[in-house]
């Protein structure tokens, strides 16, 4: 497979060369193979999924899927529906396990497609603005390996925005092919579906990297800056006296044009530009004066507060009913993306004046404007004009009305039965009916803001709004901060921590990614992040999890971003940025292999994944409820051999990838020096697992950071943390320590007294520490 797959014809009809010299005629199309990069090309540049199928199958034979059907039926073709339970097959012959992994594949494809499209939108927009030859720069001299995932997967070294188009062509081709495999009558084997899921994950990570390095380069976001600004976070930070614009979504250009227009018009200080979800994160990487309201679930509460004067939505994580919600407070809505046209008239071609007039007169509740620059002008001018009208529409009942509303409740429990967070809503509403609002108010923290409780109420009690009303004081007091997304990890940081990580002396890298909002998810994520940072793990985070972490202060009133440093080093809490910045987390593990261990990256996926899997003690925690993007992101990590833990609702992902620590035969690696098979114990024990409680997640995370390559010093540090956490949380010793001790030297000195008796009772497997690999090709003899 070659990078340049296009028709290239070079015709030179006639060069009379007798007296002429033609020097250095160079035709380059995209990043031609090898034209700028002296690293040898590895075996799998731009792989199709079958190129990495053997690697996948190795992982999947160790971590076998445990299927948890989310529905017994298949409804994808008109032969059906078919009931696949109890060993029955569908009309097409498919069985339950294949069907579950097929749905996972669909989800992962949707997720990958979303990030890849997002990247495409960004790159197309940025090329239009900055030109195809605009150089990529995500960290100046601090970063040489600016695109580790692209180098690894695609085997090319992108240097300009234009180079990224070739990468996206590849991703789109693969995504289309993977999606096709989910068609009726294609793949029938569950494990092959899983392998395709992994490939979708890899494509997703490439897409993430393209998106973030493009926007960092073009918009001059913080360039791998561990000391990026602290950003204001929370509803309480908004000055509602000013015209307020709300941006929601993930694709930042329209929001940036709003900032730019305001700057050009010298309005920066006079309007409030506020954001929800990743557009907010990326906007504050551009302008630290913009404000983050909160994660995805803050949409209803913020809009219903009546504070936003104009709402601008781009793509992803935008509630499908925002137009209706916006109308409740008479805030014009501007849709800006082909992803989400919201049924609005396309006014891209019209004059701002005319658009603004129609929005102000209410002739249309919203418009679609596909030109970010025009959005900038229309949004700012409309917000100012709306504010001038001076009306303020809230959609939250005043506290004095709550009593009457709540009295309507007859306790049918339907609100509780649709609540994704299983909150005791009916009881709280009934208490409110009795005049006590405390129960309602106390639900605010757990509420994920979906509003389903309202739709289902036959008494038309606005349950969600009632919670907001009851908790108003708390909401208004939301004033926190979060460190602006720093982007990538510097090469020097990797060099410094590479050794300690690979040898196990930094106990691990724990990444909190995705949405945190689920039940008490936000608080739990914040607590977990703090715990691991205090234990001197490297804590990495992004997106809504990064916001959640910022929303809980310590005893001294500090947010975690004030309490901990932002370096990629022990004891740091490192906010890389938005969802697409997750690329830098995967990228950091890859860079350890490349920069620290000097492995060749170029099109060399298997070797690098084998390295990461066996040596880099990293684990991801995606604690909140998740969409398809999260499935794709997780899959990208799995394939790199990085375990992912999800919250209890993550069980809805339809299958886990679990190891069996009770089967010693599952845990062999090769020693690459000798070719010998060595039993290394269950490290890491699982690849994908839903935890019921934060306690389970934390002990799991500590355990899943162990790797076969840990030195004894490293292993003993990891065991110290594992045992210490376990003892504190479970009030007893873990019962599987014997599986992780390979020699006396592995035993934490301070715990010898507690651990030795256990080992004496259970025995343990005295083993040398190999130079571990899963790949026969990595055995030194084999290479020679």
């Amino acid at each position, binding site marked *: 497979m070659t990078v340049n797959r296009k028709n290239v014809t070079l015709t030179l009809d006639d060069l009379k060369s007798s007296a002429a010299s033609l020097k250095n005629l160079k035709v380059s199309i995209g990043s031609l193979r090898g034209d700028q990069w002296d690293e040898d090309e590895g075996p799998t540049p731009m792989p199709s999924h079958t190129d990495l199928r053997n690697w996948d199958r190795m992982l999947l034979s160790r971590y076998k899927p445990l*299927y948890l059907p989310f529905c017994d039926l298949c409804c994808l073709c008109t032969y059906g529906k078919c009931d696949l339970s109890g060993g029955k097959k569908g009309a097409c012959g498919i069985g339950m396990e294949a069907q579950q992994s097929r749905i996972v594949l669909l989800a992962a494809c949707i997720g990958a497609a979303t990030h890849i499209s997002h990247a495409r939108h960004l790159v197309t927009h940025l090329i239009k603005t900055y030109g195809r030859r605009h150089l990529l720069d995500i960290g100046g001299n601090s970063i040489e390996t600016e695109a580790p995932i692209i180098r690894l997967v695609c085997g090319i070294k992108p240097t300009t925005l234009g180079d990224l188009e070739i990468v996206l062509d590849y991703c789109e081709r693969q995504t289309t092919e993977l999606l096709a495999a989910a068609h009726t009558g294609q793949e029938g084997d569950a494990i092959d579906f899983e392998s395709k899921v992994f490939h979708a994950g890899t494509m997703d990570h490439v897409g993430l990297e393209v998106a973030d390095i493009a926007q960092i380069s073009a918009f001059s976001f913080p360039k791998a800056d561990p000391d990026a600004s602290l950003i204001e976070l929370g509803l309480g930070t908004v000055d509602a006296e000013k015209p307020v614009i709300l941006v929601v979504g993930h694709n930042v250009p329209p929001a940036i044009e709003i900032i730019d227009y305001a700057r050009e018009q010298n309005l920066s200080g006079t309007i409030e530009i506020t954001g929800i979800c990743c557009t907010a994160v990326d906007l504050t990487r551009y302008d630290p004066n913009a404000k983050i309201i909160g994660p995805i679930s803050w949409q209803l509460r913020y809009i219903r507060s009546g504070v936003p004067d104009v709402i601008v939505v781009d793509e992803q994580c935008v509630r499908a009913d925002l137009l209706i919600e916006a109308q409740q407070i008479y805030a014009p809505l501007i849709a800006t993306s082909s992803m989400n046209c919201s049924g609005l008239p396309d006014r891209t071609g019209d004059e701002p004046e005319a658009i603004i007039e129609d929005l102000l007169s209410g002739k249309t509740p919203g418009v679609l404007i596909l030109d970010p620059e025009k959005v900038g002008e229309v949004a700012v001018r409309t917000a100012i004009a709306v504010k001038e009208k001076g009306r303020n529409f809230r959609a939250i009942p005043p506290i004095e009305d709550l009593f009457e509303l709540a009295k309507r409740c007859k306790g049918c429990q339907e609100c509780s039965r649709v609540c994704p967070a299983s909150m005791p809503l009916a009881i709280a509403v009934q208490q409110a009916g009795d005049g006590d609002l405390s129960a309602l108010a106390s639900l605010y923290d757990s509420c994920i803001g979906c509003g389903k409780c309202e739709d289902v109420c036959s008494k038309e009690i606005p349950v969600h709004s009632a919670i907001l009303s009851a908790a108003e004081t708390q909401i208004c007091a939301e004033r926190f901060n979060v460190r602006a997304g720093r982007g990538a990890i510097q090469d020097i940081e990797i060099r410094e921590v590479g050794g300690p990580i690979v040898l196990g002396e930094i106990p691990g890298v724990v990444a909190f990614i995705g949405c945190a909002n689920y039940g008490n998810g936000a608080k739990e994520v914040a607590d977990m992040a703090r715990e691991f940072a205090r234990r001197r793990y490297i804590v990495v985070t992004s997106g809504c999890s990064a916001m959640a972490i910022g929303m809980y202060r310590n005893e001294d009133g500090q947010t975690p971003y004030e309490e901990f440093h932002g370096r990629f080093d022990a004891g740091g809490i490192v906010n890389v940025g938005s969802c697409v910045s997750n690329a830098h987390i995967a990228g950091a593990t890859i860079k350890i292999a490349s920069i620290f261990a000097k492995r060749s990256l170029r099109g060399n996926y298997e070797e690098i994944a084998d390295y990461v899997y066996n040596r880099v003690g990293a684990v991801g925690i995606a604690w909140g409820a998740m969409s398809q993007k999260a499935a794709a992101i997780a899959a990208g990590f799995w394939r790199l051999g990085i375990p992912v833990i999800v919250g209890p609702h993550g069980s809805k992902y339809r299958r886990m990838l679990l190891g069996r620590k009770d089967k010693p035969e599952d845990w062999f690696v090769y020693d690459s020096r000798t070719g010998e098979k060595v039993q290394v114990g269950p490290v890491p024990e699982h690849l994908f697992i839903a935890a*019921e*409680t934060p306690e389970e997640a934390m002990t799991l995370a500590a355990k899943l950071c162990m790797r076969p390559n840990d030195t004894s010093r490293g292993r003993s540090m990891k065991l110290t943390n594992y045992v210490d956490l376990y003892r504190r949380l479970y009030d007893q010793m873990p019962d599987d320590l014997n599986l992780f001790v390979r020699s006396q030297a592995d035993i934490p000195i301070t715990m010898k007294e507690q651990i030795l008796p256990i080992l004496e009772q259970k025995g343990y497997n005295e083993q040398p520490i190999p130079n571990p690999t899963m790949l026969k090709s990595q055995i030194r003899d084999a290479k020679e």
Partner: protein
Amino acid sequence: MAGDDSWIRAEMGGTSHASVIGKPEVIVALLNRVKRPIFIIGHEIAATSPDCESLTGFISTVSRVRHIPVLGTSPAVKGLISHGISIEAIMGGMEIADRLRDPEWKGFDNLGQYDLVLFAAIPYSFCWTILSGLRNSAPHLNTINLNRKYQPHATWSFGNIAVDPWKKQLQAAAVLLENGEKHV
């Protein structure tokens, strides 16, 4: 509300549904039929609620008189120890589900796979998916949901019922078992 709808609306199961435990004798009969039952108890057992008290009482009695091992999926089961319940093992819910679907697994006592699992105090959706997994991949296993929110994927489940009747059934079942009722 119907007694045998999935408690969480929309988390419907498939074409077959758990039989509803209509009277305490059912539990006794089920336990009488099997050889290797096990309790799997989730973290909600630590909540301060009438539900937890009732469950704790039931588990305490039944595990004692029938020598049924108790597995906790979280540290929350520590509280059970004070009620005289001994905990066979602590293991995550997904991990134990993975063991249970393996017909070759020998159990914590190495004497063989279990044949009946009594679930309680596990978050509804988490338990729902585990039961779905077991129903599809562990045909050797029967499952009982002891909580009072109907779980369609279990073999047997309490329906969606109020605290009091449910509590009475649990207590009655415990008494029957304590009295050594072998045949109901």
